[in-house]
């Protein structure tokens, strides 16, 4: 079956199960596909939505492409960073929230856009940040 050959599909499943792509998952998949673990690792390390480290319990992704930028994404980012006390790309000390950039998510009609635990939030303003974070507590 071709489907079993598709490494990305296997990696997505492993990440869904474990929260990130663990070394054990890499070894297991490499064994099943009959390739060195290094080959699987180099693929994982390339893609920004595959993680080699545990992420926070909640994932907040912010688009900063040009259409979101002019719609005020920077102000949203600044509010997130200051209220969480972390920078983009970091996770809070209690492993509760990870903040990261996301590629343009193709929702530019409703910029700026956030993705919170996979759920899209449109036309977000900096003033809403406290409320968004409150809901994740």
């Amino acid at each position, binding site marked *: 079956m071709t489907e079993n050959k598709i490494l990305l599909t296997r990696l997505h499943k492993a990440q869904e199960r474990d929260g990130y792509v663990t070394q054990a998952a890499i070894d297991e998949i490499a064994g099943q596909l009959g390739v060195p673990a290094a080959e699987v690792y180099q693929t994982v390390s390339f893609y920004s939505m595959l993680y080699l480290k545990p992420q926070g319990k909640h994932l907040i992704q912010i688009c*900063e*492409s040009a259409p979101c930028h*002019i719609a005020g994404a920077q102000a949203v980012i600044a509010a997130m960073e200051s209220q969480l006390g972390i920078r983009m790309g970091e996770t809070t000390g209690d492993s509760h929230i990870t903040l990261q950039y996301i590629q*343009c998510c193709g929702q530019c*009609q409703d910029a700026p856009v956030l993705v919170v635990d996979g759920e899209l939030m449109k036309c977000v303003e900096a003033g809403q940040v406290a409320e968004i974070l409150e809901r994740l507590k």
Partner: protein
Amino acid sequence: MVQEMRIVLRNVGKINPEVIDDYLREGGYQALTKAKAMEPAAIITELERSGRLRGRGGAGFNTGFKWRSAFHTQADQKYIICNADEGEPGTYKDRIILEHDPHTVIEGMAIAAYAIGATEGFIYCRAEYSEISSLLEHAVKQAEEKGLLAGLKLHVVCGAGAYVCGEETALIESIEGKRGEPRLKPPYPTVSGLWGKPTVVNNVETFAAVPVILDKGAGWFSRLGAEKYPGTKIFCLSGDVKNRTWCEVPTDTSLRAIIEDIGGGMRGSEPLKAVQVGGSSCPFLTPDKLDTSVDFDSMSVAGAALGSGSIFVMDASRSMVDVTYSITRFFQHESCGKCLPCREGTMRLAALAEGIAGGTGSRKDLETIRELGTFMNQASFCPLGQSAAVPVFSALAQFEEDFRQRIMEEEGECK
């Protein structure tokens, strides 16, 4: 007043995308039946000569030529791939097509597979559109159950957040389980593509147009829109326009008509300053160019690019320095790292743009940007690096005042 012409989006609002019977009721899969009664070569000729369907992903390559190349390559296995890795900032046309009518894309792929002799196909859908991946899997299953995909096995593969995978050879590498780094061309994928086999990679919008062309005839299609880029094109409006929405219009429509009639003009009281058509890798247009027709060739003549069909509008309150900085950061993040000119160049470009935007830039930086951008354009391996500096050059050429002003302000403060 420009009128929309919905060909690719003909079923929007008429069908439930989750129900194949709705699509069949609107005449769906009849073009596939018609195609299967034709010789494969005749289908290709129809597209290539009369229809002149040119790729809607951005490159504008003749779809029939592409299919013919794969058709003529002898191989025990051929593949068909739908590029649904839409990632160009400001672009959401493929999402609109797939959300509303996944079957028109699947039907287009099935016709292409029959024409070139492929028995297996992939839809590479970006991870950001995970709901669409599920919708596509559901649609493929329905089409299989109805026996519509006899002789063709289709798979949906979910990407993992890499803009460069929109480039067809990087996309192929990604399906093969590798890092999404582009391959050297030639050989082109139609000769040696997925797992070294002849492969046709087309954009979502291109496949979606195929059933209509076969159904209504290539002659009909070729008479729509601009002569050399016939048909319709889907556009996505973003930025400082009143209605940030999408539309499908004939390709001889003017940019002004889309912005004013569909977009409703400017959102605020400030006048239009710049428009970036085609995505972040494309040049900016000034207000005097708004009467340009949106077809591929007219856009090129105007010094711009049709690209993906996004229309990003900026008003006079926007500083091109900030917009440019945002774009350079995007490319820094999305460079795959394979070649030095792009890997290091996008990083340096973003640092220079940051300096200017943040108030530590100098006039010399503008010259460095020009020199660096020229080098990246000439020496980068793939279109990502070759075009990363294009918007920066364009901004400098047309809005140099914005940059000078920012530098002057800072230099003035230093004194």
